[in-house]
């Protein structure tokens, strides 16, 4: 019981964090058709901005500035790079952001080195929020979840309740009509790209203080984010939310379970045979926890190739 409750909590928080990053990615994709490969690298940038400003001004300053820096970079990338290559097609845009990811990572390595940096939350946030079944649950995890939820609420209200949101949503479906009605479409694109990047930057600043902050955080997190958008269906924010939570729960449950295929086969009497075969059959679920999202993705591709909420092939 304790295991289930703690796993659910951890999984939901991790899922919300994933959602914070994948929401921006899927929004940008749904609107501009650009898959920003460098998106997770904006997340990493956010973490490093947070780290730097925590040393030179405080944690909260980092939290405010990280989305700002990521957003500015997003504007520059959209205005001076993506717009230039738009005429060569979406694959070309993807490749460009792919190269950009390289550059961001290497520039960060240039300044901060190859090792992990010690980005820590402030001490007054380091306490247990509550105790369940004698487990102290860290407050910071709840804080991360709360930031993600607040962001989701703000995004939802912005998209459904404001004029800006109407223009953005309309531009997703009928860009030429929106332009004909006198709205500045390139500005809308730039805004959405900057907004998505800023969200990733914020997520990085929040999560970097809890999870390890290092040069490999982007590529590890990035592939997970891609899995989320493939499972959720590209362009669907709701799909991204569901897929993020699913993956968060999947990982947090499989980390703590020491069962293997052989154990499962043992239930039907095939245990000794499977143990003899070894290899894949005796791998503990906990050691392959990192592979679980990819397995889940293959499963979803088998059942629903367009993703859970996707309608476009």
């Amino acid at each position, binding site marked *: 019981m304790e295991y289930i409750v703690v796993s659910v909590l951890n999984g939901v928080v991790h899922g919300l964090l994933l959602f914070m990053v994948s929401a921006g990615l899927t929004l940008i*994709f749904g609107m501009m058709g650009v*898959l920003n490969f460098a998106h997770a690298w904006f997340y990493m940038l956010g973490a490093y901005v947070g780290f730097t400003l925590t040393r030179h001004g405080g944690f909260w300053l980092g939290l405010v500035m990280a989305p700002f820096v990521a957003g500015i970079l997003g504007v520059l990338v959209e205005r001076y*790079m993506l717009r*230039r*290559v738009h005429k*060569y097609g*979406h*694959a*070309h845009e*993807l*490749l*460009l952001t*792919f*190269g*950009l990811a*390289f*550059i961001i*990572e*290497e*520039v960060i*390595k*240039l*300044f*901060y*080195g190859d090792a992990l940096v010690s980005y820590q939350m402030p001490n007054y946030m380091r306490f247990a929020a509550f105790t369940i079944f004698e487990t102290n649950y860290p407050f910071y995890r709840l804080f991360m979840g709360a930031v993600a939820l607040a962001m989701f609420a703000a995004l939802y209200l912005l998209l459904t309740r404001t004029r800006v949101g109407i223009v953005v949503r309309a531009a997703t479906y009928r860009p030429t009509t929106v332009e004909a009605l006198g709205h500045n479409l390139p500005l809308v694109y730039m805004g959405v790209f900057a907004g998505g990047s800023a969200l990733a930057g914020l997520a990085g600043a929040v999560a970097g203080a809890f999870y390890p902050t290092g040069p490999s955080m982007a*590529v590890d997190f990035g*592939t997970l984010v*891609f*899995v989320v*958008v*493939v499972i959720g269906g*590209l362009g669907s924010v709701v799909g991204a939310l569901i897929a993020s939570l699913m993956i968060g729960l999947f990982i947090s449950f499989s980390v703590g379970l020491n069962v293997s295929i052989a154990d499962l086969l043992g239930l039907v009497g095939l245990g000794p045979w499977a143990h003899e075969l*070894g*290899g*894949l059959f005796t*791998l503990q679920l906990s*050691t*392959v926890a*990192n*592979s679980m*999202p*990819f*397995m889940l*993705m*293959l499963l979803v*591709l*088998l059942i629903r*190739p367009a993703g859970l909420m996707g309608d476009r*092939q």
Partner: protein
Amino acid sequence: MIKTRTIVLLLAALGLLVLLPLFLSPNLLNAAIKMMIAALFALAFTLAMGQAGMLSFGHAAYYGLGAFAALHLMRAVEQKLFGFPTPLIPLAGALVGFVFGLAFGWFATQRTGVYFSMVTLALAELLLTLAPTWNALFGGESGISTMRGASWGVSFGDDAHVYYLTLGWFVVSAWCMWAFTKTPVGRLALALRDNEQRVRFLGFNAHVARTLIFAISCLFAGVAGALLAIANEATNYTIFSAQASANVVLQTFIGGAGTFFGPALGAIIMTFFARVTSDLTRSWLLYQGLIFVLVMLFAPQGLGGLVALHARKVKAGGWKHLVAPYLLCLAVGLLLIAGLVFAVESIHVVMTDAYLAQRTAAQGEWVPYELFGRSFEPASPATWAIPIMLLAVGGWLLPPTRRITQRAWLAATRDLPGEPAAPSPAVTAGQGAPP
């Protein structure tokens, strides 16, 4: 039909490659082997990308599986389980690459476009996360190693033997891939890239065709991986890393995915670049990334595309217009590169732990640092004036250079019949001067 000139050129290149080991030092010979393997891998990647428009971000999976398959076969031979001639070991890589290409490709080709790219990336990550925990197959963290056995009267102890083996497989595989593009299935790949819906209306099963083409691309990636295994006699799970998949993408697009030999050219140049610069600087990945982004922005067809453009458009007497502007481009480009390299390397030195330790020893003073065999003061404006001046002068000369080059390009191509008005200015400016 192949033109006689092309055949003569190819034969000359082949002759050169055959004679090359006579002149190369062991270190360079090893580099040549790696370059050929990278070129083969890039060609395999392009079979899926250039032909069928399937941009795979996880091709290292099949490359790595090919390498592991070859190593297991070599181990079996070494332990005298059965005999197998060393020169044919890449066949194991081909088989494994093809089988996994079919299986994984079946999933990946459910989706097209950017979805496909992400699924291939995730599949490679799946292998990367599984491999270190699966000791029997991938040898855990340390990987597996073995020795090349002698066969067919050749010891394969010498790098030159490996060179000829790699060359042989490279030539055969490259010819096979080129021939494949001429077969009906190869033409179907082009049709799939251009208009999949029409292919379906013509009664073809697009999914099956895609899977097949992807698997054939994986087959040759497996051959390249197996050749790498033979050359290195060892490998570990890092061969599946995103970095490995990324490299082939970078190399292919720097070379130009639109031409058949462009990717091989890109792979050869970039492998050589990596080998030279990785000894000199730890920031070489940054330079590689910058080159890639600049090529993407200003020469979208890649280096191969530029070469093809010149071969097609510049008339016999046209080169006399182009030589001077290109030299100017080169000079401006060198200015900019020098400024950038100076800035990056200075930052790099000042940011290292070793330098920080020196500063702590000197009570936080900005002690001078060594770069290019000279000593610089990090706190003095004179030091930073060097890159700023270089970049400013280069940046100031850039627009006139682009104008001059553009005019020269027009002059060089003017008299050709059926000539479109002007190439994109970016294409010519991208030649030597990254803005």
